[in-house]
Structure formats: structure tokens, C-alpha cells
């Protein structure tokens, strides 16, 4: 009887197994029931965007000039992101200035016909010194209005209006605020001295910040964009300046020896910097008022250029503890340090990406530096610049989509921008002298 039971149980189990197999296999067969063809390469690696000239909403002749300027500025601003291919206006089938800037006069099918996936239409009215602009972003294929805004400001607010709309549009499309409310700090020798300058994200409106007629280097933005720390040789030795940008106040940390390479802790009024008052270069954690909180590194040798992970839980820095300058990561909770870079004999200027997964740095190769990106887990590294002068001091845009850096590819050092994938490398601005040490700000509160 026992044998009979065993046979029965074994058969019962088999039936169950077969049933489960049938349940699992049947959908797989159904899924594989279509012939699949692989498409691996998009024909266009950008989104086609049409920006026709904006419409003048009143008979004021001044509006036409503003309408053209604003449409061009919007095209330029959207193209700067690297996301969009701006379509040639010569290919447009209809002119919103004649048919209207909203449906039903505006026929979105006329825009899909020329391949536009997105369309921005605008209307401008100028009355006295007041500028009013209404801007709309359409998904041409879905026939949907994605963003529609009306702005009122002074005539000189045109750039601000366009940037604010672009910011809205990018937020709608990507979920990120983009870069339009950010600035770049950099060092320029235009006055024969190394002074710190600020300019818009696209290189527009460069303004000199320091006037010490000395050497100012290594600018670093605080998370709220209100403070800038940098090293200045104004007193003859490298001191650390922590400066409030709006209120024109700050402090100077002038300890014996070096006071260099500041880096703000994300979302805190604290920063790390290298000090050498003990005779050895070590990284210290400081308050925004320049008081030492604690010593972070404890290794004889060089420890410089700290950069923080977005959550502030880790800090990358350059150390020669392994023989040559290499990038290391310190876990702030445990104090443990691990070496990140192993390729190359000289890796420096680390910059932690805002998304937290990568670190950009400069690596010496045949006498020139190149920009590299490495995963925080050590994956990669990937070289982003190739055989184009010396490329140094990478800094991430606040949304992590772009990297600014300095390059000597055209002779004098200039500030360049490229996408995070290393494509579309272009010069940001050309000023007298040489420009180095770029530092991209976080999102700044709109004025």
C-alpha cells in the first residue's frame, strides 16, 4: 500500500509541475508570437523643435524687433541644452504671425509635416517701457499644449522672461529645472591679474567679482548660491575668502601656510578646505564663518581638492598617499578612505555630479590634461576630451547634463562646455587674457 501511495504522490507532484510549466510557458510563446526587428540607433539624437518668429500683438512697430530677438534668444537658449535640434525657419509651412499663435488658426499638422515634435509660439506686446510676452510650448504630435505662460516686465527683462519660460519648458519635458537660472564663476587674467568673474550659464554678461589686483583662484559656490568661497593671494599668501555675494560681506581665513581648495557641504553652511598650518596639507571641515569643526584627513602628504556627494555623506579628494596624485573617496560616517582612480599617474580636480553617480576629473596624458568621468563605484573611466590641448577643472551644471571646463585647444585657456557624454564641445566666452577654474553654480533663485 505504501508503494502505491508513493507512486500516487509522485504522479500528483508531476501533474503540478507540468501545470506550472504550462502556465509559465504559454505567455512566453504568446509574447514571442511576433516577428521583432531591432532598431538600435535613433536617426536623430535630438528632439526637433520649431521656434517661429513671435507675433506682434499690437500695431506698435517696436514689437517686431523684440519679437524676432526673443524668438532667436529662445532658440539659442533651448539649443544650448544639447537636447534639441532647432528647425530652419525656411522649412516652415505656416507663419503664426499670419495664422495666429494658437489653434485653430495654428494647425499643428503643418508642423508635424516638417518633422517638428515640439513647437513654441509667442506673442509680444510693447507699451511704453512695459513688455508683455505670451509663450506656448506644444507637443505637435499629441496636439497638446504643454506649457503656456504670460509674462510682464520691463523692456530689459527680455532675457529673464525667455530663461524663465525655457526653465518651465525643460521642467515639463525632463522633470528637472535645467540650467537657465545658473551662473558660472571663473578666473580670468584680462586685467593682468587673476581675478574671479561671474557670467550667465551661456557665457552672457561676464562681470568681474574680485578687484584685489592679485591672484584669486578656486571659486566654490554654496548650495543656496548665496556664498562664494575662493583662495586669494591679496595679502601675499593664499588665504581663504568666504564671501556673501549679495550683501557684500564675508570672512577671511588666514591661517599660517596654505588655505586652499574650498568645497561647500551640500545644504549646509559648512565647507571643507585644505589647510597646512600644522605643516602638513590636510582637509578640514569648517563652518561658514571659517571656524574649524574637525580635521577630516589624517595622512602625511598632500590632501587637496575636496568635492562632496550630493547627500553630503561622502567626500572625494586628491591625495598622493599611494605615490601619485589620485582620487580617493572618504565615507563621512566611518572615516574610511578608498582609492577611486587607478588609471593614469596624475588625476586631480574631482567634481562630483549632481546626480551622485559619477565624478569628473582631469587626468594627465602625454603632457596634457584630459577630462575623464568615472563612476563612484569605479566603473569606467571614460575620456571625454581627446587631443585638444590641455583640458582641466571640470564642473557639472546643476542638472548634471553639461560639464564646463577650461581648455587650451585654441591657444589661450578658455572656458568650454560639453554634454555629460562629451559631445558638443563649444567655447563659452572669449575675454581678454586667459580663463580658467570654472565653477558652475546651483540653481539660483530668480530675481
Amino acid at each position, binding site marked *: *500500500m505504501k508503494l502505491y501511495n508513493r507512486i*500516487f504522490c509522485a504522479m500528483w507532484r508531476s501533474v503540478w509541475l507540468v501545470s506550472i510549466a504550462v502556465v509559465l510557458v504559454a505567455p512566453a510563446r504568446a509574447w514571442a508570437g511576433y516577428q521583432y526587428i531591432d532598431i538600435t540607433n535613433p536617426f536623430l539624437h535630438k528632439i526637433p523643435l520649431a521656434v517661429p518668429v513671435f507675433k506682434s500683438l499690437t500695431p506698435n512697430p517696436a514689437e517686431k524687433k523684440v519679437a524676432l530677438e526673443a524668438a532667436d534668444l529662445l532658440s539659442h537658449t533651448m539649443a544650448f541644452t544639447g537636447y534639441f535640434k532647432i528647425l530652419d525657419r525656411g522649412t516652415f509651412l505656416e507663419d503664426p504671425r499670419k495664422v495666429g499663435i494658437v489653434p485653430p488658426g495654428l494647425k499643428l499638422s503643418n508642423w508635424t509635416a516638417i518633422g517638428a515634435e515640439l513647437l513654441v509660439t509667442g506673442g509680444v506686446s510693447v507699451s511704453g517701457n512695459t513688455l508683455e510676452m505670451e509663450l506656448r510650448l506644444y507637443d505637435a504630435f499629441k496636439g497638446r499644449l504643454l506649457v503656456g505662460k504670460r509674462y510682464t516686465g520691463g523692456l530689459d527683462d527680455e532675457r529673464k522672461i525667455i530663461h524663465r519660460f525655457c526653465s518651465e519648458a525643460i521642467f515639463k519635458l525632463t522633470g528637472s529645472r535645467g540650467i537657465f537660472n545658473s551662473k558660472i564663476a571663473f578666473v580670468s587674467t584680462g586685467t593682468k591679474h587673476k581675478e574671479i568673474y561671474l557670467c550667465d550659464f551661456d557665457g552672457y554678461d561676464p562681470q568681474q567679482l574680485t578687484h584685489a589686483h592679485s591672484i584669486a583662484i578656486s571659486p566654490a559656490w554654496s548650495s543656496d548660491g548665496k556664498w562664494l568661497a575662493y583662495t586669494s593671494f591679496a595679502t601675499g599668501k593664499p588665504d581663504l575668502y568666504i564671501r556673501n555675494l549679495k550683501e557684500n560681506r564675508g570672512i577671511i581665513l588666514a591661517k599660517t601656510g596654505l588655505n586652499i581648495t574650498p568645497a561647500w557641504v551640500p545644504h549646509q553652511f559648512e565647507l571643507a578646505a585644505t589647510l597646512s598650518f600644522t605643516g602638513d596639507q590636510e582637509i578640514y571641515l569648517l563652518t561658514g564663518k571659517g571656524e574649524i569643526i574637525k580635521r577630516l584627513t589624517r595622512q602625511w602628504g598632500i590632501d587637496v581638492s575636496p568635492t562632496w556627494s550630493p547627500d553630503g555623506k561622502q567626500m572625494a579628494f586628491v591625495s598622493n598617499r599611494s605615490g601619485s596624485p589620485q582620487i580617493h573617496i572618504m565615507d563621512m560616517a566611518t572615516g574610511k578612505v578608498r582609492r577611486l582612480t587607478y588609471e593614469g599617474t596624475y588625476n586631480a580636480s574631482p567634481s562630483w555630479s549632481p546626480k551622485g553617480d559619477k565624478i569628473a576629473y582631469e587626468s594627465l596624458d602625454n603632457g596634457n590634461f584630459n577630462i575623464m568621468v568615472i563612476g563612484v563605484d569605479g566603473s569606467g573611466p571614460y575620456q571625454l576630451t581627446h587631443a585638444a590641448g590641455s583640458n582641466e577643472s571640470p564642473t557639472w551644471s546643476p542638472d548634471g547634463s553639461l560639464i564646463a571646463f577650461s581648455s587650451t585647444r585654441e591657444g589661450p585657456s578658455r572656458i568650454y562646455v560639453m554634454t555629460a557624454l562629451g559631445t558638443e564641445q563649444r567655447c563659452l566666452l572669449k575675454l581678454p587674457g586667459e580663463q580658467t577654474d570654472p565653477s558652475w553654480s546651483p540653481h539660483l533663485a530668480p530675481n
Partner: protein
Amino acid sequence: MKHTKPGENRVAGTIPSEGGPSFPMAVLLSLIGHLSIFLIFIAIPFLPFHRAVAPRIISVDLVSMPVKAVARARPPAVVHEKRVTSKPPPKRAKEKALVKAPPPPKIPARKAISLAHPKTLPVRSMKERTFKATRVVESAIRRIEHESRHAQPNPIDKAIEKIRSEVQKEEAAGRSDAVTEQGKERAQKAEDRYRVEIADEIQRNWAYSEQMAGDPKKLSAWVVIKVAANGKILDFWFEKRSGNAMLDESVARAIQKSNPLPPFPQGVTDSSIHLGLRFSPGGIQ
């Protein structure tokens, strides 16, 4: 000794270990019946009438299509550039023979300019070589002119013409012989060509910014489109979404942009076709 009542077992929901032989027998019979149905169910896909429509996955490299390969092999112009080739590879030599291009009558200079020993080049008198080369060229031109008058049609052109006529025949055969095996095969070929053609069309309309999507990980979206005989896209749906809204939307836009697709070529007898497309931009990274 404990005795278990049959009723208790049933309530407890366990399989009775002891009892009359009738119940296990019934289960066994039921099992045999189920197994038979199951086996028939498994066997059905392997029956011949089902094999014709058996699903399969094909992977087509859109970069190197066979059509282009033919086109690349066609130009015979290379054959005439004899002066620059000292030792043509055997394949090229065969090609030369095919087109019957006349070799120059005298090529003593060729020995001297063998690429295998470039150092011997300066030893030869340039004057002598130029003189001979001129004669060779003149003679070759005369010969080519002569042969061109009585020339046979280029065999490559003939081959292309043959392929063209075969394709025309295939298309002409169309629906009339669709019922035969040969006709089915032709229809399948025409359908396969059409599938590749429309995949190419959709790929041309695919705009996707990896940078904007901001995700370097490998993603893939699986879409099935239903196309009518006139090329109109009747429907499309995602069999598997990529998990990235931007990629999925770019795929949907590419399909919308491609509507309508070219109509079915002659020979495709179905009223509509289902085509699976696997969009994976990560494949190129």
C-alpha cells in the same frame, strides 16, 4: 491504535491515504485523460499546417542590407585602373576575366614597379618606362575601342537584369499562386522585405535624445504595430515598456510620424500585418 474516519479526512482537506481502490483509480483515469489533452495541446504547434505561421524572431542589421552589397560590388571601373595595381588579388583577377577587359599587350614595365619590391623603382629609367607606358596606353585604347564595338553586355549588368526580371516575375506571380507552396514562400519573402522596409522607415522618424532621457543604462521598448494593406497603421501597442517615459514617447512619435507606411508590395496576401519592433538605443553605447 487510532482509527481515522473518512469524513474527518475530507474535512481536514488531506488526501486519504487509505480507503477503497475506486477513488485512486478515478484519479488515475482523470490523470491519463488530462495528460492526453495536454500532449495534444503540446503537439498542435508542431503539426505541418501550423508550421507555416510559426512565430520566429528575426534580427536584421539595418546598416548592411544585401541590396547595398550588390550595389557596392557593381562598379567595374576599378578593373580599368590597372596602372596602380601591381599584384591584384585573385578575386579581382576573376572579376577582370568576367568583364573581359583587355590587358595591355606589353607590360614589361610592370615587373619593374612591383609593389613587393618598391626599392627597385629608382633603378629603372623613367624615360624608358614613360615611353613604353604611352605605347601600352595607346594600344589598350585601340583594343578597347575595337572590343567595345563588338562587346558583349557586361555580365554584372546581365546578372542585375536577371535578378530584376526574377523580382518582377515574383511580383507578377502575386496572388494567383499564393495558394501553392512556392507562392507562399514568395509571399513570405515579399512580406519579410516589406517588414525591413517599414522598420527602416520608422527608424528614420525616430528622434531620441539619450542626454535628455538622462539614463545611460540599456533600455528597450517592445512595440507591435498592425499595418493594413494600404500601409495605414491601424493600431500599435507596447508589449514591453522601457521604463523611461521619454524613450517610450519617442517610439510612439516615430510610429505616428511614419503613418501611413508604404502599401503592401505585390505578393503579400494578408489583409494586415503585425510587426514587432524592439527599440534599444542602449545597444549602440
